[in-house]
Each structure stands twice: as C-alpha cells, then as structure tokens.
C-alpha cells in the first residue's frame, strides 16, 4: 500500500465513525423526547393508592337548564397550588366524564397558569378557546364562569381569575363578555339541586 491509499482509507474510516456517532446520538435524543411526550395515565374517578390524590369539583353544562353542574374528579395532589390548578384546568378541557356539556372547545390547550400574591390566577389558553368558540352571550358567560368557578372553588389562594389568550389580554371571546379584568367567582350560576 502506498501512502495515498493509507490516507484515503483512514479518512473513510474516520467519516464512518463520525456518521455512526451522529446516528446513535440523534436516535438516543429522539428516544428521550418520545419518553417525555408519553401521555400521563388517565385520571380515574377512583383514587389510586400509589400517589396522593385530591378531589376537585369542576363545572360543566347540561341540556336541561342553563346552570353550571358540578362534577367531581381526582387529580394528583401537589404542594404547589399552581400545579394542581393546571391539572384541574386540563381536566376541565378534557370534558365531562358523565355526559355533561363542555363549555370549552375540546381543542383548547392550557398554555400557562400562575397565581399572584394578591390571589389573582392568570390562566393562559391557546387561541382555540377563541377560534373554536361558538360565540353568543350565554356561551361566553358559561365558558368564563366554568373556568373561574372551577379555579376559585377548589383553590384557596385563588380569589379572582384573569383569562389570557396566548399570553395576551383579549377584549372578548366572541364579541360579548369583556375579558379586560379579573373575574370573581359567581356561585349563583351553579345548580343547587
């Protein structure tokens, strides 16, 4: 073998090694990302033994009247009220487990939630809450108060709720109810039956 061939061969070997390294590195990363995306186990109405759970009351609608109807749900208990409130909102978006009507479009995603020292919860939803909303005064009131009541009813640190869309203040959901201020809960809208 002359020197040229030796150099060519070693270059080829080196390139192969680099390619192999990149291939395994990337596939490893994909595997990690996929693991993170795995859906969380569904929350059942029965409290599983492994994790500490807590009961929350969420508010939906039903065809028979225009009141908000409570539905109980178990969520994973967490020392952080923010974490628990996020779980509660995720459950509210998933919809009723007992055939009640949901007041949030199923496509809605919770972007972020935080609670100020003054007790105002800022709940940031994806634009689907606006784009997929049926509009109408009653529809907007239902959406606002199923969110506001579901948060204030279950979480003591939350006194008022400010609804945001993709990080920004929004005038209304569909041209009716003003979203430019934090909402106090209105428990008079809840069915007393």
């Amino acid at each position: 073998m002359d020197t040229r061939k030796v150099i060519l061969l070693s270059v080829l070997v080196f390139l192969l090694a680099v390619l192999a390294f990149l291939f395994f590195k990337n596939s490893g990363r994909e595997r990690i990302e996929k693991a993170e995306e795995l859906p969380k186990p569904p929350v059942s109405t029965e409290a599983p033994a492994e994790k500490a759970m807590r009961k929350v009351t969420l508010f939906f609608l039903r065809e028979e009247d225009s009141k908000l109807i409570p539905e109980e749900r178990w969520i994973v208990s967490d020392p952080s009220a923010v974490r628990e409130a996020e779980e509660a909102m995720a459950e509210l978006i998933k919809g009723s487990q007992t055939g009640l009507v949901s007041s949030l479009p199923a496509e809605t995603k919770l972007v972020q939630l935080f609670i100020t020292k003054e007790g105002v919860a800022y709940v940031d939803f994806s634009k689907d809450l606006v784009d997929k909303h049926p509009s109408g005064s009653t529809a907007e009131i239902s959406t606002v108060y199923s969110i506001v009541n579901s948060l204030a009813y279950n979480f003591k640190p939350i006194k008022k709720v400010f609804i945001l869309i993709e990080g920004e203040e929004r005038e209304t959901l569909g041209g009716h109810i003003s979203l430019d201020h934090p909402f106090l809960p209105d428990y008079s809208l809840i069915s007393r039956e």
Partner: protein
Amino acid sequence: MAKRRAQILYGPGLVLLVLVLALSAAGVSGSKEMKTIVIDPGHGGMEPGAKGKFGTLEKNITLAISFKLKALIEQNLPYRVVLTRDKDIDVSMDNRSAIANNNDAVLFVSIHTNGSQRKKAQGSETFFMNLNASDEETRKLAYMENTSAELEKQIEDKNKDEVKMILWDMAQSAYIKQSSQLAEEIQKELNIFLGTENRGIKQAPFKVLKGVACPAILVEVAFISNPEEEQKLIKDDFQQRVAAAIYQGLKKYTKLFS
C-alpha cells in the same frame, strides 16, 4: 408586566370614571335639540357573532331588527336614532360606545341573538352592565357616585378631553340603576310580543356597555344556536315583533322619566 397592566389601571380607572359622567351630563344639558337614541346592531363584517345550524349569522339578524326598530322610533317618538352600523362592516367595541357618547345619547340599545353550547338553550333575556367588582371596589364606586360634583370641580378645562377618553372605560357604572329599569321594561315586552321563554333580566360585564355614558342595555333575542329559534329569527314578521317589543319597552321607560 403587560399582563398586570390592567390590574394596575383598574384602581385609577375607578377613580376617574365619575368625571366623564359629569362632563357628558354637562354636554347634554347644553343642547336643546332632539335627543338621541343609539341602536347597536351586534357584530358585523369579519365578526359574524353566533352561527345557526342552517347558516344564519347573528350579525345579519341584528342589523335587520335594528332597521325595523329605528323606523318605529322615528315614526312614533320625538327622538333621533343613530345606528352604530348600517351595513355589514366591522365596528370596534370602543367605537360603538364612542358613537353613543359623541352623539350625547340618552339611551343605548345593543341588539343580539343568543348562542350556547347547549343545543336546547332557548328564550330571550335582557342584560345590563355588571362590573364584577369586589366589595372594596363597590364601596369606592358608591363613594364616587356621591361625590362626582366635587370631583368635577377639581378638573381643569384643558385636561377635560384627555380625562373624558380615559373615563369612558367605566362610564356605565353610574347608570346601573336606570339601565336595570330599562332592561326590565324591555324584557316585559319581549315576553308579551314574542312568547319566547322568559330568561329574565341579568347582569354581565359586556364590553360594549362598559363605556356607554347613559342608560344602556343589551337584548338577547332567542337563540340562533337552537334550530327552532333560528327558524323564527330569520322570519320578517318575527323580527318586526322583536322591534315592536323593544320599541314598547323604550316608550314605557321614557315615560317614567318625563
């Protein structure tokens, strides 16, 4: 930070709101011309409002009813009528209340057809403004309503225009009582004329009512999201009865104050 801006502005907004009311009242008393009623056909243009199963759009029904109501008022009552829109165009919420305030409106009627996630939801209702204020804010408001004349004296003329713009934000809070009375009169007539389910008078923080500096209500005539009521809403004679009901309510309300 921007997220908290509204919260920070809320307090000063409350403090200033009474001033615009005093200023606009001064404007009204200065003119001897025919008084103005502003009718607001809900939605329009790119913003259709609620949609019916058969494709009916809220914006078209509200405009049709508004034209009929305008005609009834102008034929029978000594009032000038201004519409916030007379064709299928976008009008911002702020502009709708500004049209009322710039015309020194004595009454503001916003016309809508309702929508719900519940297919069976039906009936008619009349809304007036609710600020959803905390107890502390309610006390502040009550205090300011009582001391508005005092506050007015403290504003220098050169600042008035600027103040007026800011104050529109919460102008409606001084007219809640009259607005609830107006809502009651109109709701009674809707029940008589339409025979739709009586959903009563209700309070909610409507964006379009918030800045209006006169008694103001929002009528929700039937549910466009309910196929049966959608069929009613598209009929000319039903729309005419809606206009007649609102007209009767307005007439009775104006009699209470003349």
